[in-house]
């Protein structure tokens, strides 16, 4: 009886705490938007550069109604999702090939270090020249930016698998492939999924930079074209859409992570 009451009190306290945090979060958001609106309205911040929430909102509605926004969103979203999946997949495949041959792994080691250290966006212009100013170049950029780091992280996860699991497999005379399938891959699944989370962010960087360069469509293109004609309302609109989409994608991957890890 008494215990139950205490339990209720405890739950009530937790709920109140949660509600408090959430209302502060909303308050902060409203505050920021209000600050933005007021400062640009009274020209404390230059509305030409900083636009205003109202301007961004009305542009959003216009662009939705005339249907000129959706294609850009779809293209960027497609590029990011494909770049993200390909980057992780290729990274995993590369990690598998490194794992399958110690010699190969040792030979590749310095190259991986260099490629990882290199800022991938620096070769953006090269990619543009080689693949032409089209979606392929953007995809390559999106993949390139995440593939090396995925390879390194996943390969090191493969190497960290407890030796004794491998010993158990050897004792049953398992082949290298069987060892991989039954031990290495399932043991590394949590790491592979956490690289997915990193790659969501990286793919967005790659795709937006790619669209800056290719400059024909997508949200990155909207930012660049808005910037060129000094239409910063458009820049902010594109930016806000990117933020929302990237967050949704990240949360989606988190959901997948929870589902997969639950199973294990």
């Amino acid at each position, binding site marked *: 009886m008494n215990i139950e009451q205490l339990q209720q009190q405890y739950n009530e306290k937790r709920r109140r705490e949660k509600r408090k945090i959430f209302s502060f979060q909303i308050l902060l958001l409203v505050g920021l938007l209000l600050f933005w609106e007021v400062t640009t309205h009274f020209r404390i911040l230059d509305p030409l550069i900083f636009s205003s929430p109202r301007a961004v909102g009305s542009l959003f509605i216009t662009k939705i109604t005339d249907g000129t926004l959706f294609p850009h969103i779809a293209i960027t979203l497609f590029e990011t999702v494909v770049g993200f999946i390909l980057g992780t997949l290729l990274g995993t495949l590369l990690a598998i090939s490194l794992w399958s041959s110690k010699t190969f792994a040792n030979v590749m080691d310095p190259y991986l270090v260099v490629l990882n250290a290199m800022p991938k966006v620096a070769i953006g212009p090269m990619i543009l020249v080689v693949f032409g100013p089209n979606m392929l170049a953007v995809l390559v950029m999106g993949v390139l930016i995440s593939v090396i780091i995925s390879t390194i992280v996943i390969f090191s996860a493969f190497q960290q698998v407890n030796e004794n*699991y491998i010993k*158990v497999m050897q*004792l*049953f005379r398992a082949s290298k492939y*069987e060892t991989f399938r*039954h031990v290495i891959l399932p*043991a590394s699944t949590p790491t592979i999924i956490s690289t997915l989370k990193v790659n969501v962010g990286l793919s967005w960087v790659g795709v937006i930079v790619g669209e800056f360069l290719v400059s024909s469509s997508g949200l990155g293109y909207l930012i660049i074209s808005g910037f060129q004609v000094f239409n910063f309302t458009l820049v902010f609109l594109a930016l806000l859409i990117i933020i929302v989409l990237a967050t949704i994608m990240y949360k989606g991957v988190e959901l997948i992570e929870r589902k997969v890890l639950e199973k294990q």
Partner: protein
Amino acid sequence: MTYLEVKNVTHHFFKEQQVATALENVNFTVNSGEFVSFLGPSGCGKSTLLSLLAGLLKPTTGSINFAESDVEIGYMLQQDFLFPWKTIEDNVALGLKLLKREEDRSIVDELLEQFELAHTKKLYPPQLSGGMRQRIALARTLAVKPTLLLLDEPFSALDFRSKLSLENFVSDTLKQFSTTTILVTHDISEAIAMSDKVFIFSPRPGTIVKSFIIPQEVRELTPFEARNAPAFQVLFQEIWKELDSDEY
């Protein structure tokens, strides 16, 4: 009947800076169906010996010969090392699957039934206690019907109570299967309670310094009862002295 003969086995580990001698001139034989223990301090090369017997390592010199050509080795490690991503059933069936003997799969159910763990079939290893997991590991090892069983301190990671009950359980099970078994341990009581023969290992480089035959009256008892037998105490003192004199 001699089942296994180890002759003049010496094993080195090569490193860049040094060569470590793990085993030096090890000689012994094991008879069919016998339970033999190797007793010695940590790091004396006992586990290396098991790896050699299992064929995971090749001895630098010397030979290891089996009486039969058809040898199936079962190896149980200090911890269970069950795969947490597989169900208990799949863990036990692992060896059969890898050795392409899936037709023998009925033994999995039989073993689980016999080990009174049939209800855990669909569970995952983290849901089981340490003692249960080690029993499952034994089931995984026995599922492939090994002709030689190697036990590498399989009870050392358990609490005392689970350890004692598991010792009884393993001893019982092995008597039924009459599997030739080699146990490696640093626990004197465990070695005496479970074995027919005990070999004493010296510290690194490991070599056999003495062997003890366990008296029949102790052998016939379960490991738990054996601990209370008068002959057990006598033997314990003798082995203790032997180990003590080796270390200094």
